[in-house]
């Protein structure tokens, strides 16, 4: 038995039955980090000293037979746009290279309360903007299953660290697919919860009407345990809310809908084949499947690339070299305040970030608001209504997570629009605020292939139940 292969429950059992100590668990993950990370570049920083100290605390609690939470002593990684008190938080950007968090994000506070052990902070596309991990100011992360390929993004480091077993689970953030797509590219499970299910206090904001924090994990059960630990209303995030656990029907009785767009234009041939294989397997289990029509689905990316950059341009206005972060303020030859803004942003923001700020500023500028932002917000309403209509007929919607298999490093870097199309199947859930999970299916051409399940708002339980059922039938 190798410790790094164990699920959260197995680790928990092993700890309370004293098969191994927390210290051994932490050290075995640290050993993997030191061996694998130099090549993979998943972690930006590792907290070895603190992790070993925390492990000691948990071991003492075990010795005195104190009640332990599911996550006590479980090593995890945090995307570097989520604040951990006293630690650097860069968001993958030069402009926050010197930024030290003054407090914990709510999700981090919750994990610490459960005595989960934070091993370090993980790499990401700058300010979570990207689908490949290549837009980080601190170097690209590689796909642990094939080093020539991207791990997906923007939670590239969190996905890579989980897949390479350099942590038991990780947290990421998902604005247009940034948890699900890298999970799919790395062959693991990734959940984007319902908008508002998890507090964003302490998450560096990208597009506030879309951002959600979610877990990346080895399997569905692990993702569920982490989600249960981090969810809930938080006074410090007024969009967060509590929700009732609803009774769910058994997985065998779930009706599945597949949007016909999943077989059409823009979907890679191999991905369509993969999806057909999934359908075959589900039909063998006598699961009801029908093709459905979500007419507005094909407008998702266009709608997203108005709403998101608009909000980005507003949220990132705070990086002005005055309050925190890197700055040209102290440069002796700078005269004007406005010059500080221009120079700081020129010098410390990356290409993709500048592009999105420009696009958003244009969409919101005088005379264009109605044509772009307002229209996009109306299209967004239409997408939400189309989903509502679909959920009258089916319980879950199934799609591939990504329209293509993982692509090679550098392949799309010079063509922003082709990079944006990678979000085609994931953005609709963000626009409509719905929970969605990516699950690994059989590899295609030796590359990971993931499917996505989308549920009505607050029906995470349905995703978990059906997800576990799907894992079971795939493993037999």
């Amino acid at each position, binding site marked *: 038995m190798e410790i790094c292969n164990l699920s959260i429950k197995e680790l928990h059992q092993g700890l309370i039955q004293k098969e191994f100590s927390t210290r051994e668990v932490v050290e075995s993950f640290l050993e993997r980090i030191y061996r694998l990370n130099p090549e993979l570049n998943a972690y930006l920083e590792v907290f070895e000293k603190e992790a070993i100290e925390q492990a000691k605390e948990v071991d003492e609690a075990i010795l005195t037979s104190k009640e332990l939470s599911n996550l006590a002593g479980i090593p995890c990684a945090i995307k570097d746009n989520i604040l951990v008190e006293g630690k650097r938080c860069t968001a993958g950007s030069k402009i926050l290279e010197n930024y*030290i968090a*003054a*407090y914990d994000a709510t999700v981090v506070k919750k994990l610490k309360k459960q005595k989960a052990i934070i091993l370090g902070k993980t790499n990401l596309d700058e300010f979570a903007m990207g689908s490949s991990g290549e837009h980080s100011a601190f170097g690209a992360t590689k796909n642990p299953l094939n080093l020539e390929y991207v791990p997906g993004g923007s939670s590239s480091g969190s996905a890579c660290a989980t897949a390479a077993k350099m942590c038991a689970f990780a947290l990421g953030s998902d604005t247009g697919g940034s948890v699900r797509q890298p999970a799919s590219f790395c062959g693991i499970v990734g959940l984007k919860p*319902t*908008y*508002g299910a998890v507090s964003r206090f302490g998450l560096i904001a990208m597009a506030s*009407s879309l951002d959600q924090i979610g877990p990346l994990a080895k399997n569905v059960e692990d993702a569920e345990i982490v989600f249960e630990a981090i969810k809930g209303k938080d*006074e410090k995030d*007024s*969009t967060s*809310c509590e929700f009732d656990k609803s009774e769910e029907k058994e997985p065998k009785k779930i009706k599945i809908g597949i949007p016909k767009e999943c077989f059409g234009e823009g979907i890679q041939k191999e991905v369509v084949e993969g999806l057909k294989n999934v359908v075959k397997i589900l039909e063998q289990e006598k699961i009801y499947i029908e093709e459905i029509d979500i007419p507005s689905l094909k*407008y998702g990316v*266009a*709608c997203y*690339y*108005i709403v998101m950059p608009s909000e980005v*341009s507003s949220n990132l*206005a705070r990086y*002005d070299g*005055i*309050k*925190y*972060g*890197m*700055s040209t303020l*102290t440069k002796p030859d*700078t*005269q*004007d*305040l*406005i010059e*500080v803004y*221009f*120079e700081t*942003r*020129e010098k410390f*923001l990356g290409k993709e970030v*500048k*592009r999105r*700020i*420009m*696009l958003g*500023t*244009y969409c919101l*500028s005088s005379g264009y608001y109605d044509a*772009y932002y*307002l*229209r*996009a*917000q*109306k*299209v*967004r*309403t*239409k997408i939400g*209504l189309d989903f509502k209509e679909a959920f009258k007929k089916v319980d879950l919607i199934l799609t591939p997570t990504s329209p293509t298999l993982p692509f090679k490093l550098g392949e799309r870097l010079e063509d*922003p629009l082709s990079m944006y199309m990678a979000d085609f199947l994931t953005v609709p859930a963000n*626009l409509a*605020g719905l929970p969605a999970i990516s699950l690994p299916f059989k590899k295609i051409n030796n590359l990971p292939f993931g499917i996505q399940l989308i549920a009505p*708002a607050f029906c995470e339980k349905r995703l978990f139940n059906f997800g576990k059922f799907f894992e079971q039938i795939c493993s037999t």
Partner: protein
Amino acid sequence: MLSKEEVKHVARLARIKLTEEEMQKMQGELVKILDYIEKLKELDVENLEPTTHSILIKNVFREDKPEEKSKEEGEKLIQLAPQQEGRFIKIKSVFK
């Protein structure tokens, strides 16, 4: 189509300095993206309300009471500023 003058104007609004070459490249990329976005005009959204919040929760209020913040945390936040004087953040002069 987005003109070079417009790109310049937007860059100024966004407080982003771009070199001539970057300006050129940015224009090309933005034109391509805006062209793609035009797609949205195909949809009739005349009678729809714009989404302001994807999960319709009502206004969230709390009492207007100041919360205790630890002095330490405040201190840490001030320390993050590139330039300080005492408990103040120091900047360049706004007016000439």
